[in-house]
């Protein structure tokens, strides 16, 4: 089966995504071989659903986005793998958050990954996964200049052997 990439996208949005080619300066192949066996690897998850920990973290800045619709909060959150579904909040103005709040696993499957770790399919999960809010200014300047570097440092610190990224 070949996925229809535009099945759920409003028709008027399609030209914003289709046929735009590579991001400027990002044409060349990038490749890091996955060196270990999965059963000996530590995996990290990264969601762009605007997830954060309600009790201890600030929300993504939606007020500023309301004032400046082309802007999106470029910061990131470290989500403890032990966070319970009821600890999770969602700040994302471009999706309905009802299903995400009912079951955050649909964006950040931390429990499913732990289950695979318990079964020995993967070696383990990082102690802290990563969350961003996917609506960003078109040029991705803050993500490129600041956020990406911080996330890479975090993933290295967590000894991540690989990352599963999931856009919202």
């Amino acid at each position: 089966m070949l996925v229809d990439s535009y099945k759920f996208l409003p028709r008027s949005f399609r030209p914003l995504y289709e046929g735009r080619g590579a991001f400027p300066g990002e044409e060349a192949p990038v490749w890091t071989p996955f060196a270990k066996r999965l059963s000996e690897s530590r995996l990290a998850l990264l969601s762009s659903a605007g997830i954060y920990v309600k009790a201890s973290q600030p929300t993504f800045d939606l007020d500023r986005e309301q004032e400046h619709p082309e802007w999106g909060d470029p910061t990131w959150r470290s989500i403890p793998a032990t966070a319970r579904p009821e600890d999770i909040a969602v700040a994302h103005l471009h999706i309905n958050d009802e299903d995400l709040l009912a079951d955050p696993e649909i964006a950040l499957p931390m429990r499913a990954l732990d289950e695979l770790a318990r079964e020995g399919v993967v070696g383990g999960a990082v102690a802290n996964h990563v969350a961003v809010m996917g609506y960003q200014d078109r040029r991705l300047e803050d993500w490129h200049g600041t956020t990406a570097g911080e996330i890479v440092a975090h993933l290295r610190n967590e000894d991540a052997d690989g990352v599963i990224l999931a856009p919202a």
Partner: protein
Amino acid sequence: MPVLARWIEAAGIPTVVVTMMPAVAEERRAPRIVGVEFPFGHAFGMPHDRAMQRRTLELALRVLAGAETFRTRIDLDVEWRVPVREAYRAWQPKVPSPIVRKLLETRSRGST
């Protein structure tokens, strides 16, 4: 997200992107791609459907660890169980996002 994956990959950590727009991830030259025909906000499947979520995650792991070449794409052969029109409405925010509101206002001003 595909661009963020490229930056992480370039820093030496292998990545896979699980996405409902795999054609866009290919254009954006993400290193490894899993396509899912799911509504936005639901990369791993339906809420509380553990089997579906696990199946998606397992395919992501297989592509992450097993892909041999740059821009490998494998699509998940799972159909969304909700009728398209209903699912299309359900994923969208109840209030249009600021940018959509702005575009709609610009458009309606242009037509008057």
